[in-house]
């Protein structure tokens, strides 16, 4: 499986510019024969940008249709995050689109940060889907926080061989290229999940300066991540003003254990489940 890790520049409140950049990235990934491209969270308006509250779209809707057409045109799976309008509610949503341009999975973010509460409702389900590439689970950004890792465990228990996670990782404005901002926050939980379940966990984050919303004063600097049981497979560049596309060849684990076998296998590996 050839995964394109699409670390996209997302400008706050500028969906047309962001979607056009995403289109170019998808085209580039398809030109390199990728099976699937993973793009960031809420890539239409940027995470918690106030304009999303009034301009967001339904799914299916204008923005998701845009990506469905691209998936079909370029014969590539696309996983991405959008701001979703659903009747009188808004969600931070990720979708997975197959090469026929159909949305085969929709996940609404569960582990919302407090600052997100005015923007999005909490999602109510977790899902995995069978594809020709393997069984794929989708969650979003903070759904993989260390203290929310049970969401990832649940996806793995549902048989996910790979977890795709559109993200919008942020750091304070003063963080520079010489800092290491992510190890405890993202690398550690990803590695734990990947090594326990012998799965792949991949996250593509947006890059860009946060303009508008409660996180003004922060920025997204990239360093998207793909991890398997042995450690980091790929990492996006540290950058806050330009996109980056990394192509990663992945070997999907054929680990067929399921149900209570998972717990037994983990115990054999030395994990303890104290109540």
């Amino acid at each position, binding site marked *: 499986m050839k995964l394109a890790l699409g670390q996209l520049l997302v400008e706050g409140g500028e969906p047309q*510019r962001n979607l056009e950049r995403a289109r170019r990235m998808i085209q580039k990934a398809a030109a390199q024969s990728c099976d699937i491209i993973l793009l960031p969270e809420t890539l239409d308006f940027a995470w918690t940008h106030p304009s999303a509250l009034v301009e967001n779209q339904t799914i299916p809707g204008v923005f998701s249709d845009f990506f469905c057409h691209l998936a079909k045109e370029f014969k590539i799976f696309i996983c991405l995050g959008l701001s979703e309008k659903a009747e009188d509610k808004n969600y931070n949503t990720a979708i997975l689109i197959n090469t026929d341009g159909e949305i085969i999975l929709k996940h609404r973010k569960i582990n919302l940060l407090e600052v997100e509460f005015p923007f999005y409702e909490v999602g109510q389900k977790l899902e995995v889907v069978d594809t020709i590439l393997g069984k794929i689970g989708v969650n979003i950004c903070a759904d993989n926080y260390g203290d929310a890792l049970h969401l990832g465990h649940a996806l793995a228990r549902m048989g996910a061989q790979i977890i795709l996670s559109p993200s919008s990782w942020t750091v304070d404005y003063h963080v520079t290229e010489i800092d290491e901002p992510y190890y405890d926050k993202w690398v550690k939980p990803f590695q734990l999940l990947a090594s326990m379940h012998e799965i792949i966990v991949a996250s593509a984050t947006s890059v860009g300066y946060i303009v508008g919303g409660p996180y003004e*004063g922060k920025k997204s600097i990239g360093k998207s991540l793909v991890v398997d049981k042995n450690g980091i497979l790929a990492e996006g560049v540290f950058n806050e003003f330009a996109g980056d596309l990394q192509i990663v060849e992945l070997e999907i684990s054929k680990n067929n254990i399921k149900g209570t076998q998972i717990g037994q296998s983990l115990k054999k590996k030395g994990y303890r489940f104290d109540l």
Partner: protein
Amino acid sequence: MNSPFTQVGEKVIVNGKITDIEYQICTRCCQDATIPNIKFDESGECNYCHFHDMMTEIFPNGEKGKQILSKLFAEVKKKGKAKKYDCVAGISGGRDSIYLLYFLVKIWGLRPLAVHFNDGFDNPVAGENMVNACRILGVELRTITSDWREAKQLKIDFLKASTPDLNMGTDIGIASSLYGVAAKENIKYVFIGQSFRTEGIKPLSWAFFDGDYLRNVHQQFSDLPLRKWKPFDPGFHLGVKELFYYTVIKGIYTYTPLYYWDYIRPEAQRIIENELEWVYPGAHYFDDLYHSLIKYVHRVKFNIDMNMNSDAALVRSGFLSREEALKRAHSIYQIEDPKVIDLCIKRLGITRNELNEWMALPPKTFIDYPTMYNWIRPFRWLIKIASHFNFVPKVAYYKYFVLNKDVK
């Protein structure tokens, strides 16, 4: 040529104010009477052309310039010997700064640390240019990011201050971040990719650079306190005290090496396109999207044509015909794109009505605010003597007190 004063009969508008100045165009470059403090000699040549000639003598290029650079860079290498970097190079992703990086690395064999100041309006094309150039040249990039809450407020402050210095926050931020990184890494040389031969000489009231001015305007128009200055994290502080710290105490020198180089823009562009995957951002100054809004405000409110000023430099240096420069003077520059102007308004979190209100305020200049200029002006004779003995650069004295003698 597009007439700059049709709406008020034959009166010339300078910095947004109707004057009694008689309209005239320099017989050598393309600058006209809308340029503040422009004077014409008997032959009709302007004082900016005279200043340009003075600068070409002080900053020679050709063989003489190469010798000066050779000596300078030998010293830079010597001082950087036991260090990781020889110098700091400020980059924006535009043509001049990316060429500077190429010039330092490929032509002179230096080991710069590239420093970029991100103030929230970077053109994405310029961003990719920086990444590509640094990757290909093997140069480390350090990005210093402003706190958007401060950066946004400073832009709004200067719209309210009603002066042409709309990008003062960014200009100060760029300079302070270069000094901050140099101080942190113990680097003694900072290089900037500018050339007066292509960029022009800006009237003081169009580009007055002073951290104290910024601080005073901000205090007047905002309640948001700027975060405190720290030597390695200066933020938007670069007043006299901070400058003294970086230049005198830390001994950091700033140079514009392209002043001494036969810098030909089309040639430089060809090199960086071929070797560094550089892409033209669409226009000069368009490495920063905020310039769309600046151009609009400058043209409509102040009758300022910054491009005429840089075209004048190109005419003087023989890179542009005077006829062509006159043809495009006072025309609407292509980066005044309504979509990008809307982006700027939205990004600042203001409304079009608010912008219009600030546009309608009486035009001012830095002279209307407390600045460093107010208190050094009475000592200009002392500065003249100091410049005679090279304690102060002659160019600085001339720019501040001769070229802009009657600044208003």
